[in-house]
């Protein structure tokens, strides 16, 4: 090793300087949860849905970049026999579930992106292609996306779909909350407006929670006394009311802790002002220094070689 004590200390000072610089680097948007006071939400009342799939049709029509599907596709009730999930060409699906209370009256449930309050996908995205807007929508920017699909691995509801068959420009596909076309202007999304039974109620999320609670109180025999999405994973913008237990209608029993609350503290702890890595650096540097075999002979040999060059 060709360095002396003076240079070593200079280097140590230099790293300290980096630490100071590191203090000002803030790549973390800490405000993303608190500024959602006025965000929108939707209550989906599954006791009202009749499975007409007008919402699916409206979604297909308003999103110009989706392949247009014929009306017959939405008329075909045999599609409801198999449980479907969202796909690259359909941002929302309606599924039918058997109602053990009354087999003649199945329960229909609409699925789409839940637009979580503290989204796992937004936290996961390496380039920030997924962002949480202040009105609650989670937007996807294909221009930034590198196609790593970490958002798909992170989403607890397994919502994002991928265009695996697109070789050159595959995108992540999911419900946009009609951000561009509607919700950025305060209007309800296309599916909400199209529904003839007015299954969905659109409004400010905190008001919707009150409305939902009142509804449950008014009809205790109709609903399970639980608003799914009020607290799950830290809250979601799309919330559900149901007469059947939520596990039976494909809503996983999730805790109240949002997924980023697990990973972000770990990341923040490691990179807080870069102190832990720099500390490790210093420790290793110290080890390297102090464990250096202090053999005078070899030092002079090295110096000889250096002067030779």
């Amino acid at each position: 090793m060709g360095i002396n004590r003076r240079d070593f200390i200079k280097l140590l000072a230099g790293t300290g300087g980096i630490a100071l610089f590191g203090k000002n680097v803030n790549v973390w948007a800490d405000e993303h949860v608190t500024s959602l006071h006025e965000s929108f939400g939707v209550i989906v009342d599954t006791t009202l849905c009749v499975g007409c799939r007008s919402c699916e049709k409206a979604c297909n029509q308003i999103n110009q970049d989706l392949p247009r599907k014929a009306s017959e596709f939405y008329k075909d009730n045999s599609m409801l026999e198999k449980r479907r999930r969202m796909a690259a060409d359909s941002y929302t699906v309606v599924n039918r579930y058997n109602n053990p209370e009354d087999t003649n009256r199945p329960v229909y449930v609409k699925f789409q992106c839940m637009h979580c309050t503290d989204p796992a996908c937004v936290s996961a995205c390496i380039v920030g292609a997924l962002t949480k807007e202040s009105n609650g929508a989670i937007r996807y920017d294909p221009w930034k996306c590198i196609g790593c699909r970490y958002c798909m691995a992170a989403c607890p509801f397994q919502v994002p779909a991928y265009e695996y068959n697109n070789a050159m420009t595959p995108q992540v596909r999911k419900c946009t909350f009609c951000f561009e076309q509607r919700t950025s202007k305060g209007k309800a999304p296309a599916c909400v407006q199209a529904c003839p039974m007015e299954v969905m109620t659109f409004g400010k999320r905190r008001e919707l929670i009150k409305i939902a609670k009142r509804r449950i109180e008014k009809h205790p025999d109709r609903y399970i006394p639980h608003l799914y999405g009020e607290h799950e994973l830290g809250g979601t913008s799309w919330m559900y009311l149901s007469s059947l237990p939520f596990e039976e209608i494909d809503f996983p029993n999730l805790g109240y802790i949002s997924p980023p609350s697990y990973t972000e503290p770990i990341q923040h702890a490691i990179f807080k002002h870069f102190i832990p890595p720099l500390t490790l650096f210093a420790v290793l540097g110290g080890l390297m220094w102090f464990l250096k075999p202090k053999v005078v002979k070899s030092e002079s040999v090295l110096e000889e070689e250096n002067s030779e060059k």
Partner: protein
Amino acid sequence: MNKKLAVSIIIIGICMCFFFLFGETGSIWSDEDSAESSVVHPILIADTGIFKKLERPPVKFYHDKHTVALEKEGCSVCHPQDKKGRFIFKYPRLRDDKNKQSLMNSYHDNCIGCHRERAKAGKKAGAVTCGECHIVREKYKKIEHAPIGSDYYLPLEDTYHRDCIGCHKEEKKLTKKAEVLNWKGFYVKKKEIEKATWPKMDFDYYLHYQHEKGLEKDCKLCHHIYDEKEKKLVYKKGTESSCRDCHREKDEESRRSFQKVAHADCINCHMERSKEGKKTGPYSCEGCHIEQKQRTARELAVVPRPGRGQPDRVLISIKDSRMKEVPFDHKGHEAQSLTCRNCHHEKLIACKECHTKNGSPEGGMVNLAKAYHEPLSERSCVGCHTSYKLKPSCAGCHHLLKSGVTEASCLPCHSGSFKEVGVASKLGNPKELLPANMSGDITIKIMEKDYMPAKFPHLRIIKKLTEISKSSKLAKQFHSDQKTICSSCHHKSPLGAKKEVPLCSTCHSLNMESRKTDTPGLLGAYHRLCLGCHKEMGIKPVDCTGCHAGKTGLKTGMRKQ
């Protein structure tokens, strides 16, 4: 460590891993697991009352398999008999529940011992190793494992508390991942639990009549009361009532639980008669515990009215009551239920004997007013009537109306005398009430700017609803006049104030954006009302073209685009 030891460690390691790689225990009985026949219900042997925390998974015991296999040998193989030779349906025969160890041993000695013997004798036998009975289950998600407390038929609620909640609490401590059960969970899952257990056996009038016939009306064979003075069971005519009158859900000091006595008496009697070659009832589990079929009209026609000296009609009057008396048609109501217990609990006495004005312990602290009027009970007058309103022919209107009692519903009952009962209904000709322009088929086109118009056969609907009302005694009593029929759709409107009722669009706005409350807009109001009623009553149409007959016949998207 030398090479040999290293080699042996490696071999042990690999073997251990292979064992766990390819060995899933419990494969022998797992065929039963997948056979989802609703008839074959296992009994779950858990005995957590004595074992407390289980070291191994509970055992699924298929009783009917054993009754079939041991048909020749009979019940005495497993069950002890008393001095008279009657079976005591306790298991195992030499049951010793002093402590955990002794109970475990008695199970193992009886079960595995018998299996071993049979296997030695070359007969078809059951499991002998641990994992074949104590089957490891991946997830206890579904209520397939609903226990019927094998230590002698505990009632469902108790089993839930002790076995379900207890086990989940243990699991939560272990893995922090078990679902924490609570009372809400039970009532939500009660139907599932009941489906997975043996269906409750209902001893209705029909069965009682079969027994009367078969035993030639020898009431003392089954009915008895306990004479305190002589300290024994005697029969006294006129005191016959339900077994549950004395024999409750749990064992008590002086009397055993209902389940115990029912199984002991019924099964033993059936078995004795079968030995004597007489016509008798079943004595296997599924012989009695089957899904109760609807009794056919023919079956019910032969059943005479149970004769216990009950009145045909009563004028229910309560001392110091401020409401008028209620004329009660006892005979008519008898025909509405399959057992007396539906109203009379277990005792065949008047409600007010136990349910006093202020409530008493005999009446479960339910006071008289509540006993008659509680809308959520299945026994109270109001409660039973409320559940009738959920029938498809009634639910169309009634699912929208608030459940329970309103001021208007007092008078039809509290009329003070029998004069009003049975009088022809005041429902008249609907056409007379309607203005001329409303009596035909109406076309709803208020939203025709955006949506296709809908056909609405107004008069036909009212006529149909009137017809349904007239055909039901209960409906006739309460649907005091024609306007009652109108009030379900024209809700929250004063009827009879003017000739015309307010428009729907008055409260249900056309413009979706302006909604700030929970009230649906006009689009949702129409569809929820119409489709809701059709769904509840099970009638058509329920698809779009049924009402919106468009030229193109579009099924979805009635929006004009």
